[in-house]
């Protein structure tokens, strides 16, 4: 049975387990159009609090668009999106953008934007930097840090906001294996303590295995499958499915 054969409406075991948890996101027939191109079509799904969802699929399949819809950065062209108004969400980009200021200020900025006093924000930012192993770089221009350090900085920025939902767009795409594992370890730590929801896109099967409990497969802007991790891994035994990971199985 091909991944695409899974009917969209069917509930997996993981989804059934999550029925009791509060729903974080509910999408009904969501479509997003850029000009004449549909980046996302007829996407319906529900994500519960505490779920760890991986979005997989080839480039241009709609993963980033789906993350932006979940974060509220774009409104769908069709369909409806329900997001809890009170939750704190953080979106981490494939290449985190740092302002031309110190690492400390970059982390404190998020808190300040949400109403914290600057002095308190800096204090918490220092703690966050220590947590991700960047305390020694607090006064460095954030743009002079390496890609891996910048992604850890972005994680510190997300962690300090105590976000309920972390959305990550291929967070380790430009990193070497060591840096990738460091970031994954931090992500695991940040999301292990409470009902924190994690939704991330990835091309790396190993990363999906390590971080996800549920996998949503996209292709051509459509959700082709929505499976618990174990079921997804069993099905990825087929060569065809592995190819969608562009050979990155580590």
């Amino acid at each position: 049975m091909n991944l695409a054969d899974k009917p969209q409406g069917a509930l997996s075991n993981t989804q059934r387990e999550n029925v009791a948890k509060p729903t974080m996101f509910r999408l009904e027939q969501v479509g997003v159009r850029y000009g004449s191109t549909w980046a996302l079509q007829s996407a319906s799904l529900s994500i519960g609090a505490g779920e760890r969802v991986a979005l997989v699929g080839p480039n241009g399949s709609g993963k980033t668009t789906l993350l932006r819809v979940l974060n509220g950065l774009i409104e769908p062209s069709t369909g409806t999106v329900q997001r809890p108004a009170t939750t704190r969400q953080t979106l981490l980009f494939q290449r985190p953008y740092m302002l031309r200021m110190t690492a400390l200020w970059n982390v404190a900025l998020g808190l300040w934007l949400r109403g914290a006093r600057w002095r308190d924000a800096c204090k918490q930012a220092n703690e966050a930097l220590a947590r991700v192993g960047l305390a020694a770089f607090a006064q460095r221009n954030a743009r002079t840090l390496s890609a891996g350090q910048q992604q850890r900085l972005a994680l510190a920025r997300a962690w300090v906001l105590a976000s309920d939902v972390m959305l990550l767009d291929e967070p380790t795409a430009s990193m070497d294996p060591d840096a990738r594992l460091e970031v994954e370890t931090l992500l695991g730590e940040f999301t292990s303590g409470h009902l924190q929801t994690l939704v991330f896109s990835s091309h790396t099967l190993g990363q999906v295995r390590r971080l996800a409990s549920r996998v949503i497969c996209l292709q051509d802007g459509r959700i082709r499958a929505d499976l618990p991790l174990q079921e997804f891994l069993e099905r990825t035994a087929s060569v065809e499915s592995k190819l969608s990971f562009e050979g990155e199985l580590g």
Partner: protein
Amino acid sequence: MDTIPQATAAALHLFASLDPALLTVVGRSLAVSTSACLLAFGFGVLAGVWLAVSRFSGRGAVLALINTLLALPSVVVGLLVYLLLSRSGPLGFLGWLFSFQAMGLAQTILVVPIVTALTRQAIDDADRVQGEQLASLGATPLMRGLLLAWDERYALLTVLLAAFGRAISEVGAVMIVGGNIEGFTRVMTTAIALETSKGDLPLAIALSIVLLLVVLALNALIAALRSWRERVDGAATQVARVVVA
């Protein structure tokens, strides 16, 4: 023709002797243009930031108008300010005509479109790259624009210098609204025009040299800023490349 070498020698003598007339005109020019540019910078940056991050119907028309105003002839600005400040004009009660303030106002109007358009472009470009990140951190559109303005501060400094270059080198507007009154509203460009028409070339050449030096210094400063920015950002990119490799 011995006129040019003789006049140039006389101009150098004016420099060497720190001629009071020369220093006064140069000082007034710098003061008028600096005041005008700082005023225009404050207003133009805010307008540019707002235009970059806001979306409203008619925005395209506003941008087209701003871009058109980039080529605003200085004599037209002079005429407009003259009409505003003349005794029977709407701002005639200020009594600013033929004064330092009138020249400052004219130059401000002249460079505001430059600051606005260039700021809008710089912030728009930065917003395409960083906007979503800042929005996801909770920044409102205006706050996003202001943060991006801070982030692009070196680019905006270049905008300020470009605006200053335009202001200090214009002659039409200050001639009309300042009146080129000796010891009161005479600035470098109007003095050059007057002294040339009178045939007093040494002072005209001396002032031209100062004006050229000012513009040269501005361009050198802009180039140095750009080079420094590229070095800093390039270093960051290089570090990232090494890590990826």
